[in-house]
């Protein structure tokens, strides 16, 4: 502990110097004046910025093109229980691979992106739109399937890097599937051919035996 060397009051003056510097600095130095005039100017959100989820659809139709297959993984994993999915049924009453209803209550959603993380089909992604203030609580706060569906183009616009990765991955998967299907078909064809060959050869067999 040593004696304070300076005169009393100097500390206060130093403080006033700092605030004074900030006062004048805010007129000259843009790094000091950090205000973003919100409705006119907006902060550029980083690509990973997230708020509420949306459903991605490919192609042009927001219902037919949905990637979601109603597997309900996100519904199970959602920590705040904000997702509700009703699986569609086809005319025979069998479960179909698309959702009849898909609702996200943004009045409960906490934007944790676990749904997007666990989705095996890259169908649900995080939107960065934040202007959702509304006067009502029920209709505006429950986003239904139509409202949730946003095109892949939109996804590319808000998150170009991520969307490109996802597209590449999906393309790869599709390619693999296609390859697998082709191989399967090839195999089936080979088998068929073999069988046909065998069948063709069959009549000869009894002759041999």
């Amino acid at each position: 502990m040593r004696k304070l060397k300076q005169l009393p009051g100097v500390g206060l003056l130093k403080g006033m110097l700092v605030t004074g510097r900030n006062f004048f600095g805010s007129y000259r130095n843009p790094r000091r004046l950090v205000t973003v005039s919100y409705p006119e100017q907006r902060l550029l959100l980083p690509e990973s910025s997230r708020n509420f989820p949306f459903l991605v659809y490919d192609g042009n139709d927001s219902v037919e093109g949905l990637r979601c297959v109603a597997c309900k993984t996100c519904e199970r994993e959602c920590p705040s229980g904000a997702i509700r999915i009703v699986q569609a049924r086809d005319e025979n009453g069998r479960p179909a691979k698309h959702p009849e209803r898909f609702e996200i209550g943004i009045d409960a959603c906490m934007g944790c992106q676990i749904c997007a993380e666990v989705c095996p089909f890259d169908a649900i992604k995080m939107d960065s739109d934040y202007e959702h203030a509304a006067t009502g609580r029920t209709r505006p706060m429950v986003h239904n399937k139509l409202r949730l569906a946003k095109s892949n183009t939109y996804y590319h616009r808000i998150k170009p890097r991520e969307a490109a990765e996802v597209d590449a991955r999906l393309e790869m998967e599709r390619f693999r599937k296609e390859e697998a299907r082709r191989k399967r078909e090839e195999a089936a064809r080979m088998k068929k051919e073999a069988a046909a060959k065998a069948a063709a050869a069959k009549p000869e067999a009894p002759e041999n035996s």
Partner: protein
Amino acid sequence: MTTMGTTDESLRQDLARRGVHVTSLESLYNWGRAHSLWPLQFGLACCAIEMIAATMARHDLARFGAEVFRPSPRQADLMIVAGTVTKKMAPMVVRLYNQMANPKYVIAMGACAISGGPFREGYNVLRGIDRYLPVDLYIPGCPPRPEALLHGVIRLQELIRGEKLSGPGRSRAADPAVPGEYPIPNYGPAGLRPPFNPDLWQPPSDPDAAPDDGSDAVTPRETTA
């Protein structure tokens, strides 16, 4: 009455387009209140930090004349319920609302204040402050970004500027039938008594059907083909 009001409004808009500004006392009054929304300095949880962030240098709520956060409810015009309202806290929130002077507005900021949010299954969490208070604006998010709060405040300003002072559809503050204060719930053995204020909120009869309160249209099916 309603048709008269709308004619009036359209006439005024028409005049405004031609450069004639008809300033009635009503719009002056609404303009004044819209630009002088002093919020109650009152934060409950995480959302309060984003509310504070909205008043800070980067977002600067003060630009809208709303930076005068008053710690005393008597001088506040706007209650931003920012954060989880627990059952233990709910009576105080209602009391604070009652202590505010008319005209007063309530913003439910964040998932918890709207519906209890991710915590709504807990035994001590109120599932939405609208069970006890009339909420003017809901801002979803967990927490909403500061910009979302600014957006909400701008929307509230628009609402205030569109308020009527007389006739049907007049604002809450101008309607003598609307009480200025609401009953304060009591602590019960497992929750609050009563669990909600039936004048303000009723449990939805059919929770499956999303009720239509007409406040926002549903987005139509998008097809570009």
